[in-house]
């Protein structure tokens, strides 16, 4: 058995059905899910209680294709389900691909009991096992007769929770580690509102403000906070702020903030705010481009994405990436459409906190991520943040 990255701090856990599969009666689904949870309670201190009106540790969802996380399902066959390791927010949640033919036994389709028991293993903190006889083996093996937890999995779960373990508390998450987001009752995540200044405010202090967006345009860094932006040369010296609409002719005057921005290889500049985008040629909106912007769904971003947190070109492959919450997309070579097998989970960018406020490739080709008053430098070759980060934003600019 292989332990995952986290365990629950207590053994009395809750679960909740977000919805049901149409493949069988609800009562049947409920029985199979409860039986799948029971598999993990034999000779362990774990207990599971169903809740119906609050968020639960384990949220059970049946969904097809894209379902608002970074792991879209793939239609019938191949990937059947996935689950998240323990933690707040989506941690512990189990998602089942509703394009599968879910059944009550292994001969008439995909056995929901078996798959659910496997996924709950992840939800409890177990990774995949290499043993084909283990429940936590990654490939679906089917099963005949009465299911019992194999020894390898029992060893795994008792290794994590013992047989009479006292409740523990989650250690404080270290700075720089991935932060989990809170959930709201409809199961969708919410993010804290940016702390950018509102209309009527003067320019904020760029050394001590959350960055909305930044990018390099023809060797200069353009830094956006609220209704203001700054231009910084290679020495990272901060110049006087300018109101966005007084320089970028064509952006709506009432725009509260820029969420993300990047420069395309053809020198056109793309701005994102909310679920709209604008394309500029130098500091003028492209002719015939609507002033109210175009919807980001034109890039094939799903309609439930209401905001792009960051856009950046990655020096490793020169491709542009868009980030929203814990999901990201790679754009095609023309920056006109996102690649077909996205979104993916931001966990790929190890150590990058979500949601990010901004990200960009600086003049030296280094990828930098910003959140709050901190920034992280990314180590491309190892696909993780550099050691020694986060650091304060004020250390990044020369004048702070």
């Amino acid at each position, binding site marked *: 058995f*292989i332990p*995952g990255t986290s365990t629950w701090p207590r053994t009395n856990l809750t679960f909740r059905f977000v919805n049901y599969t149409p493949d069988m009666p609800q009562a049947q689904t409920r029985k199979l899910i409860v039986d799948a949870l029971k598999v993990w309670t034999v000779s362990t201190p774990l207990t599971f209680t169903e809740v119906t009106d609050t968020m639960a540790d384990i949220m059970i969802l049946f969904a097809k294709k894209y379902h608002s996380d970074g*792991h879209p*399902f793939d239609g019938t*066959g*191949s*990937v*059947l*389900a*996935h*689950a998240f390791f323990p933690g707040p927010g989506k941690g512990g949640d189990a998602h089942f*691909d509703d394009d*599968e033919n879910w059944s009550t036994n292994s001969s008439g389709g*995909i056995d929901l009991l078996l*798959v659910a028991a*496997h*996924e709950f293993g*992840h939800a409890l903190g177990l*990774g*995949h*096992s*290499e043993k*084909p006889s283990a429940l936590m083996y*990654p*490939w*679906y093996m089917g099963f005949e007769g009465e299911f019992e937890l194999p020894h390898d999995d029992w060893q795994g779960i008792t290794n994590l929770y013992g047989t009479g373990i006292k409740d523990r508390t989650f250690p404080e998450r270290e700075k720089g580690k991935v932060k989990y987001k809170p959930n709201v009752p409809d199961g969708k995540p919410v993010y804290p509102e940016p702390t950018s200044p509102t209309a009527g405010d003067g320019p904020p202090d760029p050394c001590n403000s959350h960055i909305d967006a930044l990018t390099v345009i023809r060797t200069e860094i353009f830094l956006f906070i609220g209704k203001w932006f700054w231009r910084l040369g290679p020495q990272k010296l901060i110049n006087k702020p300018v109101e966005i609409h007084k320089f970028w002719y064509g952006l709506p005057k009432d725009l509260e903030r820029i969420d993300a921005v990047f420069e395309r290889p053809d020198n056109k500049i793309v701005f994102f705010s909310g679920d709209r985008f604008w394309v500029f040629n130098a500091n003028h909106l492209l002719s015939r481009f609507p002033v109210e912007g175009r919807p980001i769904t034109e890039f094939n971003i799903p309609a439930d994405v209401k905001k792009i947190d960051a856009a950046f070109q*990655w020096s*490793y*492959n020169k491709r542009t990436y868009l980030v929203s919450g814990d999901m990201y997309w*790679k754009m095609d070579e023309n920056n006109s459409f996102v690649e077909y*097998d996205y979104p993916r989970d931001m966990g*790929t960018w190890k150590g990058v906190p979500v949601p990010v406020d901004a990200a960009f490739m600086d003049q030296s080709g280094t990828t930098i991520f910003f959140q709050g008053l901190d920034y992280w430098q990314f180590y*491309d*070759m*190892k*696909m993780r943040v550099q050691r020694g980060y986060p650091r304060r934003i004020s250390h990044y600019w020369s004048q702070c």
Partner: protein
Amino acid sequence: ASRTERKYRKLQSDTVKYLAQFGYLSGPSQETQNLRSKEDLVRAIKSLQRAGGLPETGVPDSRTEALMKKPRCGNMDDFAQTGIDHFSRKKR
């Protein structure tokens, strides 16, 4: 390219995608689907084949293709990286 060649190229690209998706490739290749060396690819395929109980040929053969089509969990194979480390250590 002949039909066989096209089919083989597609199998290779599907294999790299599968390896990246389920954690058999680390580093930037996980995102770019480019491999730093042929050795990395061979190592990753062998690790997948070992996990699937197949002969460790290091090439995407028909058995590997069948394994990649088998229904499975969408989570990464946590043992994949461990497997590669063991392999390297043994080799040294």
